[in-house]
């Protein structure tokens, strides 16, 4: 499904990030281009800057210098980063960040719950996604009753709800055992193949490379 020709879906130019509180330089002039339909792994040890890279391209933090382009448009020019995330990005957090007190279906619909009216089509779509992830029977379950693997699947389902062009997975298997990790990685692979969704997986695990089309290695905030 990947096409490394034409304009990349996401690219960075001399992307640098220094955390002001610690003065730590997390990224040093990183230049990366990722094309539509790719399933890319970004691998590196702890502190290599891979999560910072993901947060930057999701617009969750701002770069110190350098530029990020989404489909050729600079992220810095987008005033509303929330809108950018909502319309284009599906984010999978290592720690899930599901909303306590809500059930599975409600957590799935959370990205749309800012609206005064949520149509039946969104609900149907959420149920379709749950069906694809084999979670329909758990739609009404409180998330506190789910296993770590199930929670991560809910997190993936939530990321899919808006049919994003780009999915960002931050250590998606970090909280899972080997068996569940395999299931999740295969699921991401299937989503990439079936939907053509561009997926970037940040990880420190070698096994992820088996599921990705290419791997970018990072060390000390630089691509190696």
């Amino acid at each position: 499904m990947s096409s490394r020709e034409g304009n990349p879906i996401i690219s960075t130019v001399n992307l640098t990030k220094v955390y002001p509180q610690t003065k730590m330089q997390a990224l040093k002039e990183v230049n990366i281009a990722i094309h539509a339909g790719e399933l890319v792994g970004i691998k590196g040890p702890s502190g290599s800057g891979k999560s910072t890279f993901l947060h930057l391209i999701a617009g969750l933090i701002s770069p110190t210098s350098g530029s990020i382009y989404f489909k050729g448009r600079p992220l810095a020019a987008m005033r509303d980063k929330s809108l950018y995330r909502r319309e284009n990005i599906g984010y999978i957090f290592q720690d899930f960040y599901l909303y306590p007190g809500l059930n599975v279906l409600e957590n799935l619909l959370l990205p749309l719950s800012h609206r005064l009216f949520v149509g039946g089509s969104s609900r149907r779509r959420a149920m379709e996604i749950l069906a694809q992830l084999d979670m329909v029977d758990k739609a009404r379950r409180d998330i506190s009753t789910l296993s770590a693997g199930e929670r991560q699947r809910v997190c993936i389902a939530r990321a899919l709800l808006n049919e994003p062009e780009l999915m960002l997975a931050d250590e998606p298997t970090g909280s899972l055992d080997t068996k569940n990790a395999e299931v999740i990685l295969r699921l991401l692979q299937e989503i990439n193949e079936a939907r053509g969704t561009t997926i970037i997986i940040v990880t420190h695990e070698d096994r992820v490379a088996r599921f990705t089309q290419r791997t970018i290695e990072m060390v000390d905030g630089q691509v190696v």
Partner: protein
Amino acid sequence: MTFLTFLIKDLLRRKIRLSLTLAGVSVGIAACVMMLGLSEGIRGSFRNAYGDRRVDIVVYERDEFNLLSSRVPSSLTAALREMPQVKDALGVLMDVQRYQRSFTLVFGWPENSPHFENIKVVEGRRPDSGRREVIIGTVLARTAPLSLQQAIRMGGADFTVVGVYESNSPFERSAVIMPLEVFQAVDRNKQGIVTSIDVMLKEEYRREDRIREVAQAIEAFHPEVSAQNADVFIREKTKQMVMGEKISLLIAAITIVAVVLGLANTMITSIFEKRKLMGILIALGWQKRRVIQLVFWETLLITVMGGFLGTIAGRYSMDYLFDRMDLVFLVPAWDYGFLFKIVGLILLVGVVAALIPSWITVHLDPIEVIRGE
């Protein structure tokens, strides 16, 4: 799940936290309402007693500081009525009598006294002249408790309760009123005397300078009495009450400040506990203003509910406490316009206190907020 349903679910998600916040707001508002009720009660007592009756001059025994000890001949009332500036003059006998465990204010009014026009008999009838009959204020009727046709013993004599009245003056609401001549007759020391005479002037003399002239004229003709502008009289004879009013206002102000600070602290704490969840919502694509709207509506619902419960609790707790404490001279009063302004102001502070940390939170990088950095 829409914005509204999410708002409700988010509010009810932590029921204990919600209950504690509601309780904090309610107790704070109730404390303010109680203090304001007490303060208004003190303030209104004398203002209503004299202001409503349009009394211009009060005549009492010269150099007698304690009004209850003042002795003025009843015959002076008729003499004052003869003055061309005077529209009417009414002798009033006033005393404090022990009734049950507390003391009760007792008034003796002439049968034709226009004072009767300023009270409203809500049950029974006015006392008949020459008979040992009394009417009692609504608060005394409730707290004693006393009802129609019951006997009440005062000053060694038995009286029959023939009516219950409502009055604008909290003092009168817990008092006993009987015909002046009956009051004078049952107490040998009070025969032919009154405590004070309320003088109402004709309309053209109801200016401060003219009132002073008439008062001076009364004192010149009757050197055994003092005649004072009613406003001056209230100020001088109620210094302790005025001091009490100031103290109660000060306590009310301190209570309001404490409640405002407590409420602000509660709301800020509540928002700081929600920071991570606010970060998640923004990370999921919620716009900053929508997250602030969520906080605003949640805070508004909590404060309005807490404010409502607190106002009701404060209002009725005060009445209940005063019923229990036998404080018959003082009844809490309610200036609802002022009360709602104060409660509204406190709640506004609560909402603003919640919005400030929310505004700061949504303008941070969401990932920093989620990680709690």
